[in-house]
């Protein structure tokens, strides 16, 4: 059933006055607002009642009564599904070509595995344990290393626009890390190198805290440190 009640709060950023938030109808969905998100993880359903906290119990009761949305095609309870990798694949996708994006992703992970295995077999005995061969671990650690801690936001005061250091939410940090990675791999490469090769290279560099993306993160941090004086302009 259709529903026209998905609202978004649109704050008007005019400092130094506090903005009255206005609700505008922005998006609607084919599901009615009472539908809840599906939970695919099998372990969630196998937990006995005693281990749950108050909130989880309330959630369970609510779920037993409300209708649930259908699980989208990207969601499955498979052990191989990784939400971070799905998000990254979607960001790499162009014009809805999920097949291509997914194949590039698998090729990248394969390339990382091959490079690490080469290093592993060439390394002396005592260093073999320090080399990480699992491409998923490398992917996660690399993106974690690329995440900025603090960001800058443009605030206009007295006619001038200042770059004010601002704390970032987790979602925003992850998004920025992934966005930087993808733009870096699309732009700064030789015409003939393919995306999986360049991506695997960048991910391995980021895993070791080197490379252009880590540099970009450090530059952002230094800018934020330099603009410390304007930190009090932030009102949220």
């Amino acid at each position, binding site marked *: 059933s259709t529903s026209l009640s998905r609202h978004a709060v649109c704050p008007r950023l005019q400092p130094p006055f506090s903005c009255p938030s206005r609700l505008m109808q922005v998006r609607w969905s084919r599901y009615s607002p009472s539908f809840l998100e599906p939970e695919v993880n099998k372990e969630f359903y196998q937990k006995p009642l005693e281990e749950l906290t108050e909130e989880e119990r309330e959630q369970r009761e609510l779920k037993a009564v409300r209708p649930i949305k259908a699980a989208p095609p990207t969601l499955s*309870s*498979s052990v191989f599904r990784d939400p971070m990798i799905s998000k990254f694949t979607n960001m790499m996708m162009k014009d809805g070509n999920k097949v291509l994006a997914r194949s590039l992703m698998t090729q990248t992970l394969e390339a990382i595995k091959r490079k690490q295995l080469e290093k592993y077999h060439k390394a002396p005995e005592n260093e073999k344990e320090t080399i990480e061969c699992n491409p998923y671990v490398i992917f996660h650690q690399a993106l974690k290393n690329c995440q900025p801690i603090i960001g800058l936001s443009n605030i206009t005061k007295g006619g001038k626009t200042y770059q004010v250091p601002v704390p970032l939410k987790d979602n925003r940090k992850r998004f920025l890390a992934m966005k930087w990675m993808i733009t870096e791999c699309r732009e700064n490469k030789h015409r003939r190198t393919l995306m999986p090769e360049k991506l695997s290279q960048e991910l391995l560099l980021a895993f070791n805290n080197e490379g252009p993306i880590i540099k970009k993160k450090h530059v952002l941090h230094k800018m934020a440190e330099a603009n410390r004086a304007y930190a009090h302009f932030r009102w949220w």
Partner: protein
Amino acid sequence: LRLIHTSTAVQRKNVGASGPEKYTEAFIKKQIEEFNLGKRHLANMMGEDPETFTQEDIDRAIAYLFPSGLFDKQARPMMKHPTEIFPEQRKIQWGEDGRPFHFLFYTGKQSYYSLMHETYEKLLSAQKYQDQLIAQDLPLQKEKRNLAGSRWLTKIELEEMLLEKLSDNDYSRFIQLLQKLVALPCSDIEEKYIQKFSKEVPVQMQKVLIEPLQHDERGVAFSTGEGRRKTASATAIVYDNGTGKMTVNGKDILHYFPVLQDREQLLFPFQFLDRIGKHDTVCTVSGGGRSAQAGAIRLACAKALRSFVTEKEVEFMRQAGLLTVDPRVKERKKPGQEGARRKFTWKKR
């Protein structure tokens, strides 16, 4: 001008809020008398007792006497009590000397603001009661309100209650205030007041009948399911004591679905229930694209698996989103725009 009976579709615009009375009290009274008289006449015509003639009987009688083939139920002839047809109107808000009755008349939204004031007073009294309990070191009662069984009034329902137009902002403010009131531990004293603004949600959806297992000639148990997704429709027959083979339109799934994502979707219900190597499946699918066909087969398999599995697991499947029909379809293209959402390129001149 004779006032004609309007249909409920027209009344959905909040006529009550659109200004002073269009129908006078005397008129409504006359309509009610006419309705009652007409009810008795109708009962006599149908040969039934006029005293015990209910609204359902009236509807049946009208459908019998004036058969109509119109599709829109609200366009057919109907005979309802005038209070249902003529919505409640706001009476004139000022006396003969021109002085308004309500002290908040000049705010423009008198009912809304008086409601907000009342609710806030309840909030303050609940807080005072809480302070008293704390001062006397008594335990604060916290009977949990059942979140799942009730919902707040919608904006339209609130407008009908107050007979006044509300804006989205006003409505959200009011709901926030109510939520704040409910969150207090001592909100039990205001329970009656809160119940005026909450409605019962029909708790359990229709219990779906799970078909029992059928058995074919070899004695193997099987079950069928149907699924649809975005123009694709599929039927799946899931056999017991199998090796995990899946056939779609006569071909193996490896040939029919070369993409890994589609195969993941097909195996999703089996993987969720830990029954991967235990069932054989034969599916037929038509229509839609590759992802839609995969989604349709997934739904069909999940529905077929319900017969093999306990009720608790069926509930888990429902909460994982396996048994819901995905209502998302392609949005139509609108005139004046290039696509469903994309507008034409804006040119300054």
